[in-house]
């Protein structure tokens, strides 16, 4: 067979294969959007089931969210935004400084600290959740923003990641800055942090994604309806008894939007970021 023809066939086959894969990947998301735009009567016609095509176009589900019934929903949305934003800022701030120090400074106990970070990295959060929950109870923090955020502020994965990234920073810059009379904080914030921007972007996505979609821990520490985050709030709509499917579908669609925006914004750095943290493991 001619080589050009053979290549065309392979190229076509690959295209068909990935059209199928992309369809499988996107289908659930599409069916969610379809469900959110369908009248409630259509969704429940034969018990709850997804429809492939819109039978009737209907914004009823969305008007419900934007109307009076959406009150609790927007409160959850706001809670999620506050918690995620604060967590992204704080965890990037602290983890980057710890990681940077672990990479570029010599101090007593450095190896021990790094070993501890790796150790914590290997212990799943689920095993720590009961002791942590007890701590939150004894601090009297249960059912507050602080309880959700406190255990996640310094993420070992972020510390590890920033350390790996900092190892590649030019040490000579530190020396010359010192000679010029720059303080150590000045070196970090004015010189090194700008150099680390790609790593900040990658971690912003990762921490944002983790925090926005975090489920088990908020489920434990959040009790009252007006302090729920989005996933917990949406989960309460998912009972066999409730009739809140309207808000569930349109609310689910809207809940994905901020994370897509975050992702598109930092996307270029994300893939590079994944490998720096991962491949060395």
């Amino acid at each position, binding site marked *: 067979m001619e080589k050009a023809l053979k*290549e065309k066939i*392979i*190229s076509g086959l*690959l*295209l068909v*294969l*990935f059209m199928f*894969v*992309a369809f*499988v*990947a*996107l289908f*659930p*998301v599409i*069916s*969610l959007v379809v*469900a959110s735009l369908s009248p409630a009567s259509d969704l429940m*016609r*034969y*018990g*709850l*089931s*997804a*429809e492939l095509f819109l039978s009737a176009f209907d914004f009823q589900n969305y008007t419900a969210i934007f109307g009076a019934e959406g009150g609790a929903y927007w409160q959850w949305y706001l809670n999620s935004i506050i918690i995620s934003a604060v967590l992204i800022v704080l965890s990037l701030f602290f983890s980057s400084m710890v990681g940077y120090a672990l990479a570029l400074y010599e101090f007593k106990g450095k190896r021990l600290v790094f070993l501890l970070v790796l150790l914590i990295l*290997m*212990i*799943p*959060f*689920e*095993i*720590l*959740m*009961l*002791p942590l*929950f*007890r701590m939150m109870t004894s601090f009297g923090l249960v059912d507050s923003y602080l309880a959700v955020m406190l255990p996640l502020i310094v993420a070992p994965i972020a510390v590890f990641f920033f350390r790996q990234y900092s190892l590649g920073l030019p040490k000579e810059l530190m020396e010359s800055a010192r000679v010029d009379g720059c303080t150590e904080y000045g070196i970090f914030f004015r010189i090194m942090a700008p150099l680390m921007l790609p790593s900040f972007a990658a971690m912003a996505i990762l921490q944002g*994604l983790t925090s926005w*979609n975090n*489920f*088990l821990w908020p489920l*434990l520490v959040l009790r009252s309806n007006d302090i729920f985050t989005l*996933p917990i709030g*949406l*989960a309460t709509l*998912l009972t066999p008894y409730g009739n809140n499917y309207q808000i*569930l*579908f349109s609310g*689910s669609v809207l*809940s*994905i939007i901020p*994370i*897509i925006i975050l*992702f598109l914004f930092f996307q270029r750095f994300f*893939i590079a970021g*994944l*490998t720096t943290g*991962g*491949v*060395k*493991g």
Partner: protein
Amino acid sequence: MSFQRVLPGQIDYIGTANYSRVFNPTFYTALQNTTIYVILTVIILTALPLIFAVFLNNRLMKFTNFFRAAIFIPALTSVIVAGTIFRMIFGDSDTAIANQFLTFIGLSPIEWRYGAASGMFLMVVLASWRWMGVNILYFLAALQNVNNDLYEAADIDGANVWQKFRHVTFPAIKPVVIFLSTITTINGFRMFEESFVFWETSSPGNIGLTVVGYIYQEGIQRNDMGFGAAVGIVLLIIIFIVSIIQLYLTGAFKKGD
């Protein structure tokens, strides 16, 4: 904490009593479910992404960026949102999409959430759907680093496609294979949410009970924190042993690899 009986306002040291209660039939069910889930997800989430990434990386492949983005989108959804959709697609009624498909190919509809095998299927499919794209990205990034000269050398030696994969591509991305299979194993043992979205905390005959779900049930719902902590420690030991064995078998400890 695992050596204590924890009651509100009162904590007693009770030695290993919690541990001797851990090994009961419910725990074994949870452990069995979790283990099956781990094995299935490790196979699916390591092998398939590897194949897809190699195909996507082929120079004859078109629209790579579009497919990359499409495959990655599921990772952005929260497990609650994803679970909601999957509960619709795999609904119990005959008209749910999955059941319509089964009818179309000549099988009878299934009540997905009420059978042990179909329940496991739901959890594995949900996890695979969400994490496939992420793992493909890892492999794609690793494939970028494979030295092109090696392929040219292999071409000169007359290697076929499979030989090139076996002797050039695979050794180069082996660290990522080890990394991903280890991470997937650990994530599998931590699984709670995939089960929660389908059955909340009680599934028929415990078909969806996982070890973490068991910790949640005992520690939070029944308020027996000492016992929950003991289950947690047992889980930690299991994860530790499995990871060591896995790393040993995959040769991560060998020098010069």
